[in-house]
């Protein structure tokens, strides 16, 4: 029987399964025993308890009297928010630097190269600590804040004038959202028409017009509010306006500057992967350098760029967990506080890992879908 490969394979797999099972069983046994002797109850019921700690930055309403579950959501939203903003900034900066690395201008090329080489060879956490140190120690204290118009720059971050809540502002935001929706649908309709009739109306101008008119209309219809809350110096900080904390700025700058260096290399590789004939053909059609890049090279380069870009976006999101080193209340930092207060280490860490896993899968799913859409359709 042993000479049958099928039989051997089944035996090997049963052996592996029992080994893994035994390890898990042993760990679980120890775990239950340890938790019993420390009088910690297993389970997620702690999530319903009052958290009791405050969070300095939150996108939704949160008080110390709220539950641990809500604190966790606050942390998750902070992680998602800073990642989303940094992904956009890193992509833009990376695109600019990547194109700069292939510029015909020698100086620009070298400068872009120096940026990439100096940024990506230093650990991100060190860059974050430096940004944070500079923002909190070297900027002037609140009383001597640098005044930029009606904004202030100090150790407490940037304080900006901000609209006071009013239905008109929300209507404007809704208008902007509708404009984006319109632009999207309009572009699709135009593309269909071009494919059918050969010529079609412009996309850019109507979309831009909608982007200006719709928010303005919403703003005007709901009372045209003009009241801005301007920051005013008080003893310890600023009152009114919107204050962006140094923790957020440092994390945002660190993540975008670091990831941009990697994205620049992806952009460069993508552009170089488009064959020279494409660029020559576009030049023969009389397109300018900018048009060649925008209409011919980049759309083709994008196909090559998407898979590595996906892993950079994933890296950025995972790297946002370094927030805990500079005190930005992200998912890790809030989970850490929670597990220190409740002792529910297993649950808190498992929950945190599960959420990161879910976010990673969601991002790669989204990018795979996009990759599928822009793939080359061959005859």
């Amino acid at each position, binding site marked *: 029987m042993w000479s049958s490969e099928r039989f051997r*394979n089944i035996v090997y*797999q049963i052996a592996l399964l029992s080994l893994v099972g035994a390890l898990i069983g042993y760990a679980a046994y120890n775990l239950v025993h340890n*938790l019993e*002797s420390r009088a910690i109850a297993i389970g997620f019921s702690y999530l319903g308890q009052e958290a009791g700690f405050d969070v300095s930055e939150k996108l939704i309403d949160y008080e110390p009297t709220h539950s641990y579950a809500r604190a966790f959501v606050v942390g998750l939203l902070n992680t998602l928010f800073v990642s989303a903003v940094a992904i956009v900034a890193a992509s833009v900066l990376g695109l600019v630097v990547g194109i700069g690395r292939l510029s*015909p201008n020698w100086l620009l090329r070298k400068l872009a190269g120096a940026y990439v080489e100096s940024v*990506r060879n230093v650990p991100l956490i*060190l860059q974050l600590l430096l940004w944070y140190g500079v923002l909190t120690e070297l900027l002037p204290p609140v009383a001597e804040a640098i005044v930029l118009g009606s904004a202030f720059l100090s150790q407490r971050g940037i304080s900006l004038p901000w609209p006071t809540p009013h239905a008109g502002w929300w209507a404007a935001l809704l208008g902007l959202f509708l404009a984006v929706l319109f632009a999207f649908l309009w572009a699709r309709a135009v593309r269909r028409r071009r494919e059918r009739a050969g010529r079609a109306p412009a996309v850019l101008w109507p979309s831009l017009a909608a982007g200006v008119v719709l928010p303005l209309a919403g703003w005007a219809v709901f009372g045209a509010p003009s009241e801005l809350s301007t920051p005013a110096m008080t003893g310890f900080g600023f009152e009114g306006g919107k204050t962006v904390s140094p923790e957020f700025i440092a994390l945002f700058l660190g993540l975008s500057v670091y990831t941009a260096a990697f994205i620049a290399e992806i952009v460069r590789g993508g552009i170089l992967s488009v064959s020279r004939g494409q660029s020559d053909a576009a030049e023969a059609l009389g397109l300018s350098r900018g048009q060649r890049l925008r209409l011919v090279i980049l759309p083709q380069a994008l196909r090559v760029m998407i898979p590595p870009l996906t892993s950079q976006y994933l890296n950025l999101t995972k790297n946002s967990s370094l927030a805990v080193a500079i005190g930005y209340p992200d998912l890790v930092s809030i989970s*850490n506080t929670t597990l220190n207060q409740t002792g529910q*280490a297993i649950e808190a*860490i498992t929950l945190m890992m599960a959420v990161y896993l879910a976010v990673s899968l969601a991002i790669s799913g989204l990018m795979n879908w996009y990759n599928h859409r822009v793939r080359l359709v061959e005859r």
Partner: protein
Amino acid sequence: MHPPATAHRPFAARSLDWLRENLFSTPANALITLITLALLLWAGSSFVSWAVLHAVWGRADVATCNALFGQGACWAVIADKWRHMLFGIYPQGEQWRSALAVVIFCAIIVLSAMRAFWHVWRLLALWLSGSLLCAWLLAGGFALTPVPTALWGGLPITLMLAVFGTLFAFPLGILLALGRRSALPIVRAASIVYIELVRGVPLITVLFMASIMFALFLPEGVSFDKLLRAQVAIVLFNAAYIAEIVRAGLQALPRGQYEAADALGLGYWQTQLLVILPQALKITIPAQVNSFIDNFKDTSLVIIVSIFDFLYAVRQAVISDLDWRHYFVEGYLFAMAVYWLFCYAMSHYSQWLEKHLSRDHRL
């Protein structure tokens, strides 16, 4: 045949040609050049004035630095604290051992870059003997004064986490890669779950798991050293990434190699060890170097679970001293320079290797 006309032209004229072609080819290009030049001059001159011209060099007391605060860099902080920055709180009299360990770790890295060592047994012998020697130097025993791991710190720890983190992750990564391509469904599923699970979460969460959660899974009274736990976490984390690189190498091999091995009557392990892996691993060398660089940079995350690595030592040396704490920028710049030197050298080596290997048909 006449040589090209440019060869006869004087140097000045050729330089002008170069300038015209590379910096002032079009009006837009000229504008970009001027703007970039202005920015560079402004940033460069303020940096040089701060870092060189008005800086305090060599040993000096805090008062000298404070007098120039904001105008000039205080490199005196590094002259004063470099031992703490490099070796942490390792006993002063024994720090030569830390220094020697750093030298040996660097030697391991440099020697592995040489082609003469590109042989499984030579590499294994080099890494194992070097690592054991370093472990002995740091830990002591056998004629050296024992030093508990709680006192280890600085650059040797960073290098140790990176070198051990690769050495032990490598066999595990190969096994996982083979497992992921295995015909046995349970082995394949287990490998996929492990690899994707680890790659989906940040290293910090794995370090947290090792430093906080791990103790709960062990029988009461049994505990591992904190440094060892972080090291194990790094090994387990790296293994998933190495597995994906090895898998790419395995996929790049043509089917014929497997079929040829089959025809020779080799079994599974003989096929893998004698035919497939030697070829697949060679293809992945540049990717492995890049992964080692990432790993080297990532070791700095251990400061979050309070492991005394190089970054932790630099930070502690400056921040914990009330007199010097304003000069953290100089301290961080020093740390950046050290990390940069290692990573830049390795990444250039990897680029050179990639070019070299793609031309070399024997590989």
